[in-house]
């Protein structure tokens, strides 16, 4: 078994924390992600990850915990995206882009100040690309409660969410406040992004939000199936990513292990490719 699972994997405390944190984040991301993909809001989701990066780098500057930074950043970003929103899809994309670019500029400044004021090295990598194995075990409880909150909100708003994703006019005719649904969903998405940033770093949290969801949408036809498949893929990919990253310590000649986020992204993209192939084959038969 040693070629598959390097010794010490099951006894290592950082690995346990990593597995628990990533399972929570992946579940929330998969559920929220399916709606993100159905609503065609992948760009807004990605913009929130860049604002989460600003929050994360700001948190280092003031000495707050990374989770607080990521969540505050993403929620503030959701507010900015909601306020900036344009009239049509292109206008909305441009407005989202402006929020995104301002946030990235601020991260640039914060990371520069982090690097010049503190003696800690590798802040850029840690905030942007994640360092799951150094996560503090005490973040498990807040992560779990925030994750549950996001899932409950999604569960409560599931009908208006589906209806507004399918047809805005129909939803309006039914008396649903489309604008309100959108703002609530943006806030939920921000929470998911904040949690995911903890696992894979802020720049790569898009992977957990979009990847499993788009793979599930490609190979299923019903919403409930898509949600189950996305959750299974999300948790599976992030656990596999953690395992491979742990193993990679022994692969590299200089014992410099590859980051968790890299393996999570690679497995997510592979599962997307397989699901797409499977989905098109099933439709053809």
């Amino acid at each position, binding site marked *: 078994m040693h070629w598959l699972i390097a010794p010490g994997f099951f006894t290592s405390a950082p690995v346990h924390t990593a597995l628990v944190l990533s399972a929570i984040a992946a579940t929330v991301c998969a559920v929220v992600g399916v709606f993100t993909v159905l609503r065609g809001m992948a760009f807004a989701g990605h913009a929130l990850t860049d604002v989460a990066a600003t929050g994360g780098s700001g948190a280092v500057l003031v000495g707050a915990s990374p989770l607080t930074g990521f969540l505050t950043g993403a929620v503030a970003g959701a507010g900015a995206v909601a306020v900036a929103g344009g009239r049509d899809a292109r206008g909305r994309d441009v407005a989202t882009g402006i929020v995104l670019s301002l946030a990235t500029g601020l991260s640039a400044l914060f990371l520069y100040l982090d690097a010049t004021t503190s003696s800690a090295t590798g802040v850029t990598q840690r905030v942007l690309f994640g360092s799951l194995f150094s996560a503090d075990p005490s973040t498990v409880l807040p992560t779990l409660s925030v994750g549950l909150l996001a899932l409950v909100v999604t569960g409560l708003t599931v009908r208006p969410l589906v209806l507004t994703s399918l047809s805005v006019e129909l939803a309006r005719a039914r008396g649903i406040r489309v604008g309100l649904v959108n703002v609530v969903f943006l806030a939920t998405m921000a929470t998911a992004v904040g949690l995911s940033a903890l696992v894979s770093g802020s720049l790569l949290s898009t992977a957990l939000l979009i*990847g499993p969801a788009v793979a599930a949408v490609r190979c299923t036809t019903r919403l409930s199936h898509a949600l189950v498949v996305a959750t299974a893929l999300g948790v599976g990919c992030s656990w596999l990513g953690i395992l491979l990253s742990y193993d990679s310590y022994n692969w590299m000649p200089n014992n410099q292990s590859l980051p968790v986020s890299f393996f999570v*992204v690679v497995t997510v993209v592979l599962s997307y490719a397989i699901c797409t192939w499977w989905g098109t084959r099933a439709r053809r038969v």
Partner: protein
Amino acid sequence: MINAWEVGTIVAIVAGVVGFLVVLRGDVFAAHAIPNGAFAGAAGASLVGLSPLLGLGLCSVTAALVISALRRHGQRDASTALVLVLTLASGAALLSQSTQLASSAYSLLFGEILGASATRVLPLLLLAVVVVGVVLLRWRAFVLSAVTPDLAMARGIHQGRLDASFLVVVALATTLTVPVVGALLVFSLMVGPAAAARLLVARPGRSLLVATATSLVVLWGALAAAYWTNWPVGFFVSVGSAGVYLIVRLITHSR
């Protein structure tokens, strides 16, 4: 510093011209994703000892072609997002393998005034001429297919091929811009000035000129500010372009 001004001027003109079409065609997300592909290219090239410009070019053109192929099959934004995270993650994996690279990660992502002054002007100028040349030659097709896709189709313009060639133009423009403003902020310089110009001027030709002029002012200002404060160029570029857009939007809104 004189070199930085020359390089900056070339970069700003290219970003303004290409950015105008990015905003007009609604390719904002793709224009954000392609520079991230470039990041992996630059990291890989410096790991094996190739010229970073070559790595940047190869990787961003590949990312552009993959994005344009994938997004024909629906879920346009989601497939772009996947290409983006895959390239970024590869960049991160490369960076984790070399401590020397890790220190250059920041300037690759956010730009550096040294990056601007160390770039050689001639290859950059040639690449810029190619990019602007292609845009001017195919100007009518790019604009027509963005504004009225049906009419463009009736004129016999192949949408898929045009889409791919436009993304390759974006990729080449990216290659020029990354060393100066950084992979994450190329996009700011392309989108902010162009979006502001679109709000101010309706005619495509004039709007293009306004976009290019604005991006020149933003980049010159950012270079000067970065030189004075020693803060990252990318920060000033993003604040400048977002600021211009916000001011213009407030003005046009109150009219």
